[in-house]
């Protein structure tokens, strides 16, 4: 019996997706200081479905290349601190199936 792999990681999931990343980011943290001083939970690093937000000691790293363009971070950021745009036409995520 083949076994369903337990706990497939987000990296493995993201590997299944096709991206045509733009050279510049369509996502911007408006004020880095707010993440550092006013946001202990850094909840975007939890709810982002592609884990593109990663806290690196003193700043938020935004791996926009793997973004699903869902909009959760714009709506869910408790400080409305994310400037969210669509990637340039034809760029970003390319779903092939679902």
């Amino acid at each position, binding site marked *: *019996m083949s076994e*369903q792999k337990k706990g497939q990681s987000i990296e493995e999931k993201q590997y299944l997706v096709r991206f045509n990343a733009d050279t510049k980011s369509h996502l911007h943290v408006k004020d880095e200081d707010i993440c550092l001083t006013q946001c202990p939970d850094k909840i975007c690093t939890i709810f982002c479905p592609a884990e593109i937000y990663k806290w690196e000691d003193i700043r938020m790293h935004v791996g926009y290349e793997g973004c699903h363009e869902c909009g959760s971070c714009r709506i869910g950021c408790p400080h409305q601190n994310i400037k969210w745009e669509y990637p340039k036409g034809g760029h970003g*995520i390319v*779903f092939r199936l679902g």
Partner: protein
Amino acid sequence: MSEKFDCIVVGAGPAGISCAYELAKGGAKVLLLERGEYPGSKNVMGGVLYRKMMEDIIPEFYKEAPLERPVVEQRFMMMDKESAVTVGYKGMEWGKEPYNNFTVLRAKFDQWFAEKAVEQGAVLVNETVVLECIVEDGKVVGVRTDRPNGEIYADVVVLADGVNSLLAQSLGFHKEYKPDEVALATMEVLKLDKKVIEDRFNLEENQGCTIELFGDATKGILGTGFLYTNKDSLSIGVGTLLSGLIKHKIKPYELLEYVKNHPMIRPYIQGSESQEYLAHLIPEGGFKSMGRIVGDGVIVIGDASQLVNAIHREGSNLAMTSGRYAAEAVLLAKQAGDFSEKMLDSYRMRLMAGFVGQDMQKYKDSTHHFNKFPQYFEDYIPMVNKAASQMFTVDGTSKWEKQKKIWKDLGTGKEKMKLARDMYRAWKVIK
């Protein structure tokens, strides 16, 4: 592009394509703009396409559209950690014409549907983002795109730009949504042999099954999971209010893994291979989150206007109907040479008088209610599981004794009153 169109439709999903199709068919000069590489490349849904609303646009589309399986069985699983109470309906009438609904893969279906609109005469331009509406004297007169010299003009602009609905928001038609007005859904397409699917789901060839998952699938947070059969793959997903993920600090992809490894689900998907992972928002604020949907020279349709019936997992059908009505309103306006809000309001009137508006109103309190009172998912579904387990476990205890025990387990008199009140309340918000 300096030429002027009768109508520009922003976004090639079910709403936008339906609208463009009907407009082109009605003789209007219509431009359909899509930001993705092709229609469907940015679009996600669990996968159920309803036959009726699609046939209102293209009769007998099922004879040529790229569909997965006609759904002959719909199951609902109320899950606890290691058990489930399942109800469902299977009927052979759904397996033949005219069918009830189908599973689809959107990247394939939307491309096909957009081609049909092009055959009718719509101009489809991909890889183009609309940055904003061009407004003159309070009237929308065109759009500004991200292409060089990207201003395009039209008598009417139809906004079908999906759940994020940034264009309607920038026109002041609605506020930014809050985390309890949207659900974040993640899903995977799992490749599995056709024959294995048919054996596991008790299906014959060209028959499909949908299973909706409640309760432990979302760890008690308001939301649902789903497992749908495609031709040679399964679609599995889970969606919860964004506010629920925030409150419980849950990673959506870990919740998806939890569902995939749940003992009630794992046997269905065993041995399958992940082909794609997708995330998308669903507008779930309902009627109360709907903003303005008509203005001078502009109409909002589909997800962009919050048209989703979350209780019945319907959305694409509402989108298609809204697109069709919008097209008819634009054609009437074209005839009259009047593109004012007053003239275009025939769209809103028809929408609200028909099943779309009726259902939106019927369920206007449902998301809010079930979100406010988490006991439905947290407590009552496990309670139903426990009662079923007690009743059906044969251990020498008489059925009367068992019933007594189940009644006692419902709690004190006060707790029973609360339960009764909650059941009545739930009935009230969905009746």
